[in-house]
């Protein structure tokens, strides 16, 4: 505690010493200095003021010296001075007043001028208002006039409208009556038609009966007569379909040639077995005849706008039907090679088209419909909504259709029944690529994408036989397989370019024919059973036979 106070005292002493040294000696000095400085500055100011005063006084004294002449008694002078002073004061006051008055006058003048200006302005405004008023009135009158006019027109139009309305009701009444007449007439006409049809049927029946009787008679006669058969005489002109006794399995390529510019999608022999047609991606159908080991072109059918997908001859070989990727099917006559009909209406590629009867055609399309066409009226008579893209179809007995679909189903249709419901369906394991009927129309050969051929017995409505082979691959969605004319064999092309021929009764591969270098698309057996034609995705068509 003692040391405590010691250093505290020491500090206090130091501070006091500091203050004594630094501030106390200077307090009075600086205070005095500041005071003196203030005094000096105030004196300086006063000095300046006095100087100015002196100057002023000097000037005054000079002026008084100049005026002071003569010695007048101081009293009078004083009196006069006082008077003068008063008068001068009065005078100044007057002057002041006058000045004020003048100022007032000036102010009033200014005011007056301003008011006048205002009046002038108002006048101009009034005149312009009047002018506008007049123009507005004029326009109002004009508008009223036009309103009246419009009203008159309106009235007129209304009248016209009423008149027209009345005319319209009258006409409508007449129209209704006419329609009634019309329906009446139609009914009567229909009745007449029905009667005609009945009569026609009766006549037909009679005619057929008569013909049958005649035929029976002729047959009897013919049976009686011995007719020498002239074997040397070839097929006479006219339609004689080829007859097959026994099909032979072709063993070698007789003729290999470039048929088209691009892929060949379809080949088909005619019913006589004398010609075959091929259709390809180059939009052409070509007709060929096999003669002395070569295939000679017998004509080209043009008219399609896209590749040909399927071909079919009519039963008498007079017409050729081609389905096309341009959504249409076309019919050419073979003799003059001219395009006769173009059947348009599908909204997708037509993948297959076949003759139903001589006058009707059925086509199956990628747009999931089948259409039946009447060649007489050249129009679509029926559209069947199949529900899936149709890859191939065949016709049976002129009225039934069997179609093979993308959804692995085969559908059976009867054109006579109500549309849009198939009579029967068979589901297979793969997408259908082709259908082919055997010549006895009891067996159906189906080619599916699961690389096998199925033979369906149409009487049993089930698969009777399955044909497969090592290395057999179905090349595309429209690969076609065929029966031989005697139903002993089935032929189909593979994706690797081989042509497989199966023996149907043994369900075994009979032969594998190698000539194609691309996937084989379609093949067709000559109706006489001696040769086979196949086409591929390249340009080539090969004709096979065993001699």
């Amino acid at each position: 505690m003692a040391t405590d106070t010691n250093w505290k005292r020491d500090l206090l002493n130091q501070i006091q010493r500091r203050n004594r040294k630094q501030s106390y000696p200077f307090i009075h000095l600086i205070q005095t200095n500041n005071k003196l400085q203030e005094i000096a500055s105030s004196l300086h100011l006063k000095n300046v003021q006095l100087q100015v005063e002196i100057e002023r006084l000097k000037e005054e004294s000079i002026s008084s010296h100049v005026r002071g002449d003569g010695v007048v008694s101081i009293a009078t002078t004083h009196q006069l001075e006082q008077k003068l002073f008063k008068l001068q004061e009065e005078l100044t006051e007057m002057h002041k007043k006058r000045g004020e008055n003048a100022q007032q006058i000036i102010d009033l003048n200014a005011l007056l001028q301003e008011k006048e200006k205002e009046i002038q302005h108002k006048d101009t405004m009034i005149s312009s208002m009047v002018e506008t008023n007049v123009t507005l009135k004029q326009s109002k009158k004009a508008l009223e006039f036009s309103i009246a006019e419009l009203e008159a027109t309106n009235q007129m139009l209304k009248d016209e409208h009423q008149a027209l309305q009345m005319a319209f009701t009258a006409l409508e009444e007449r129209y209704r009556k006419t329609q009634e007449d019309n329906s009446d007439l139609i009914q009567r006409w229909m009745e007449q038609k029905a009667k005609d049809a009945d009569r026609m049927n009766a006549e037909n029946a009679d005619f057929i009966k008569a013909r049958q009787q005649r035929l029976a008679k002729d047959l009897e006669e013919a049976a009686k007569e011995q007719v020498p058969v002239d074997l040397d005489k070839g097929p006479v002109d006219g339609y004689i379909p080829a007859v097959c006794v026994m099909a032979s399995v072709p063993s070698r390529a007789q003729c290999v040639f470039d048929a088209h510019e691009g892929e060949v999608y379809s080949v088909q022999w005619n019913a006589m077995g004398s010609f075959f047609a091929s259709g390809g991606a180059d939009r052409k159908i070509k007709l060929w005849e096999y003669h002395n080991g070569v295939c000679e072109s017998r004509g080209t059918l043009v008219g399609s706008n896209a590749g040909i997908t399927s071909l079919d001859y009519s039963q008498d070989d007079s017409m050729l039907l081609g389905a096309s990727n341009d959504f249409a099917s076309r019919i050419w006559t073979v003799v003059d090679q001219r395009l006769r009909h173009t059947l348009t209406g599908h909204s997708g590629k037509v993948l297959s088209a076949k003759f139903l009867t001589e006058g009707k055609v059925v086509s199956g399309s990628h747009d999931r419909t089948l259409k039946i066409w009447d060649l007489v009226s050249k129009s679509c008579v029926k559209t069947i909504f199949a529900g899936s893209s149709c890859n191939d179809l065949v016709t049976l007995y002129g009225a039934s259709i069997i179609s093979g679909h993308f959804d692995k189903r085969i559908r059976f249709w009867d054109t006579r029944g109500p549309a849009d419901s198939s009579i029967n369906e068979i589901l297979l394991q793969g997408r259908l690529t082709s259908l082919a009927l055997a010549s006895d129309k009891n067996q159906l050969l189906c080619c599916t994408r699961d690389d096998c051929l199925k033979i369906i017995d149409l009487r049993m409505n089930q698969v009777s036989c399955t044909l497969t082979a090592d290395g057999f691959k179905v090349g595309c969605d429209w690969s076609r397989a065929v029966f031989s004319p005697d139903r002993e064999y089935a032929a189909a092309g593979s994706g690797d370019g081989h042509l497989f021929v199966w023996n149907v009764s043994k369900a075994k591969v009979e032969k594998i024919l190698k000539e194609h270098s691309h996937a084989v698309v379609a093949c067709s057996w000559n109706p006489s059973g001696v040769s086979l034609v196949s086409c591929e995705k390249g340009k080539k068509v090969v004709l096979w036979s065993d001699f």
Partner: protein
Amino acid sequence: MADDREILRELWDGKIPVSFQLAQEEIYTVEQPDPFFLLVPRLTYFPLVTDKVYRHMVKHVDPDHGEMWLEFDNQPLKWHYPIGVLYDLYGYQSELPWTLTVHFKNFPEDELLHCPSKEAVESHFMSVVKEADALKHRGQAINNMQKKDHKALWTGLMNDKFDQFWSVNKKLMENSGEDAFKSVPFRIYQMDQIPVQKLFKPVDDNGENLTLKNLLSIALPDLEEKGILSRYRVVTQGIEPPLDVPVGWMSEHLSYPDNFLHICLVSRGHSES
């Protein structure tokens, strides 16, 4: 305690005689301006006392002048240090009155802050007080005060009212029981160096009071290591306190009004030259 109060009072009365002279190259009039003498309190700031100097000098300079600033011995003086600190740091060895040069041109932008008004000084002062209280009481004392207390601190300093100032300041200087100082707000100045400021507890772990010597060894370990501390005088408030004075007591009694201990190290060699 009577001694302590006396010490505070004597410190408050500390004044320095200053002679203001206009820089020769800035005189604009024919007449040479007289030097202006003032006795300025050590604890205040220059912008609070130089109004008269400004009025006196401004008559003699280019009317297109800039802000006024002061210089001693080619050293621009920072207005935000208390005048006592400036004197102890730069003018401790010089003769009295302290002769400063007044400038109106070439404001040393990179050394001085602009001082637009006395409000700037006030806000600076209050912020330093808050900083000090944050160090001492975690800012609780200053935050518990009202606005009028803050105002009383400032007006007490500005108008040289010892009682008004200390009636408020004693709350900030509370150093007992729970309000004991957490750490001591101090700054150590050296010529041409950035001031040193560190966290420093006034009492060590054993409850012993730490002295000025401890403070210097912690704040300036370099000087301590080199053993050159004896080359410097340790000056605060114009005196050289013994090195065994407890720092806690120093902070309570020898702090400037901004609650900081401003300690200057003045080279002894400088005084001999």
